[in-house]
């Protein structure tokens, strides 16, 4: 994977790194749901099973030692990617949803009590709302929503008002999966700490587009899925500060997370294994490490610049179309590859059907963010999501297909 030294990415080379683009001529604009996978990720998973497959942590024979090494090396790769030198702060899960549930069941059930407040933003994916609903209901805590403006921004004043001495935990998405706007997590985290609470940041839609440093941001918990950042499905990450994770009880119990077990008691393993019960997804971790390698080699700053360029092209194109409305900010720089839009009098399922007939893959519906859509007074929307591997031609085809939707549905214009 040799890149040219120019500012810009070599798109032909990148397209060639993703086997799926060789088998389909369709424009894949649903990367916010799951990204495509480069050859190196697929190979990393394959070679784990071909050359290193054994159960990790438990065998004393060479193959198991090798499998363990690959798994633990992947943990170190993730740790250094997000800026921590303590690899035990990285817990492998199945996905961001499982990471959030782990925090809720383990940290939440232990530390949140009756009358305490949990603050979530209205822009959360359901996966960062439902675990907190569950905690609020079972512990008698209060779930408070921090509301955004119509352009998706949060005012300093609203953030300050939402967080008080009653707040025990704040769950906030770094980038909304509907609006694409980067949220002011550093400000939120510092206010959360002043209030003596902890901050949970969902980086599922930002980790693949921008550099995140857990030490600089001082975040308490950070979660993301591997499959949205070029990695395989079935591997996700929970980062937590060591001093917090150390005090948390296990989430799932079973094999590989214990030191010893007696008839009526057990002592649990130390971090990170305390939170990784059962046989782990070592091949998935190897794939995730390869994905991180690919992102770093490509350069997150170049990726970010490319995302922005394509996003600008798409948004400027959509803005020219009558009856089409982009949700969130008017400024393409506030979209980070995520463009949700509505077409007057045409249901998103019909929009996506017409686009699909033109060979363009987008998502339609409520995007697992019903409270946000309700807040924005939109029933549902179509979403195109862009990644650096998309081409200008794909964006242009998308825009011209959207421009034809109403006519194809029988409207005069």
């Amino acid at each position, binding site marked *: 994977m040799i890149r040219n030294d120019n500012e810009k990415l070599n798109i032909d080379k990148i397209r060639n790194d993703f086997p799926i683009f060789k088998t389909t001529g369709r424009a894949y604009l649903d990367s916010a749901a799951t990204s495509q996978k480069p050859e190196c990720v697929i190979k990393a998973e394959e070679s784990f099973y071909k050359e290193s497959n054994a159960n990790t942590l438990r065998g004393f024979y060479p193959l198991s030692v090798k499998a363990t090494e690959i798994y633990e090396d992947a943990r170190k790769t993730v740790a250094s990617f997000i800026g921590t030198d303590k690899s035990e702060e990285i817990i492998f899960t199945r996905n961001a949803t499982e990471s959030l549930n782990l925090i809720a069941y383990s940290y939440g059930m232990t530390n949140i009590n009756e009358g305490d407040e949990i603050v979530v933003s209205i822009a959360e994916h359901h996966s960062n709302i439902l675990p907190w609903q569950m905690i609020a209901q079972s512990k008698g805590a209060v779930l408070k929503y921090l509301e955004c403006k119509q352009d998706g921004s949060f005012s300093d004043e609203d953030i300050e008002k939402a967080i008080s001495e009653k707040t025990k935990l704040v769950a906030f998405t770094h980038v909304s999966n509907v609006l694409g706007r980067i949220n002011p997590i550093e400000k939120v985290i510092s206010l959360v700490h002043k209030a003596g609470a902890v901050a949970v940041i969902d980086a599922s839609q930002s980790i693949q587009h921008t550099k995140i440093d857990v030490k600089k941001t001082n975040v308490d918990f950070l979660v993301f899925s591997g499959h949205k950042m070029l990695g395989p499905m079935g591997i996700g990450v929970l980062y937590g500060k060591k001093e917090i994770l150390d005090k948390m009880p296990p989430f799932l119990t079973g094999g590989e997370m214990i030191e010893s077990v007696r008839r009526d008691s057990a002592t649990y393993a130390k971090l990170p294994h305390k939170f990784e019960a059962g046989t782990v997804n070592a091949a998935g971790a190897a794939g995730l490490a390869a994905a991180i390698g690919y992102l770093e080699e490509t350069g997150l700053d170049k990726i970010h610049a490319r995302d922005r360029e394509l996003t600008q092209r798409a948004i400027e194109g959509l803005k020219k179309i009558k009856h089409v409305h982009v949700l969130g900010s008017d400024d393409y720089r506030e979209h980070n590859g995520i463009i949700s839009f509505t077409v007057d*009098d045409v*249901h998103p399922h019909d929009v996506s059907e017409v686009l699909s007939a033109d060979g363009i893959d987008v998502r339609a*519906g409520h995007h697992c963010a019903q409270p946000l859509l309700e807040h924005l007074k939109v029933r549902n929307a179509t979403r195109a999501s862009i990644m650096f591997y998309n081409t200008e031609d794909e964006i242009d085809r998308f825009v011209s297909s959207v421009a034809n939707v109403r006519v194809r549905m029988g409207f005069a214009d």
Partner: protein
Amino acid sequence: MESRSFYNEILTEHNMRPYYKHELEDADLVLEGVNPNCGDDIIIKLKMDGDTITDGAFVGEGCAISQASADIMLGLVIGRKKDEALKLADIFMRMIKGEADEEEIESLEEATALKDISHMPARVKCAVLGWHTLDELFKDRLFA
């Protein structure tokens, strides 16, 4: 690009200018049908005289396929007896599964515009929402 022509004139016309999408005062039978995974939500309302459907309407929200399908359905079943309506619903469901014969399909008149939905598995639920609701409406109730 097989589905390029899927939204044919019959469908777009029934979607843009539905004849039966309105309130119906004093309806004898009312049932809501929902597709939870896409949010389509329609309420079918019927007026009955014995077991004859004398009038009908629907209200609600949904994609063009669910809206047009419900509108076409009401046009077909109004004036018919309950059993005839249920038979048409059965043929419609089988047409969508690709199991109805030519003669049966012809009896569906305008609803044959939805025949190709059998090649679009993701949209089958939209097409059958109205018909399924009609089926439930009669199954759920006993009347003269």
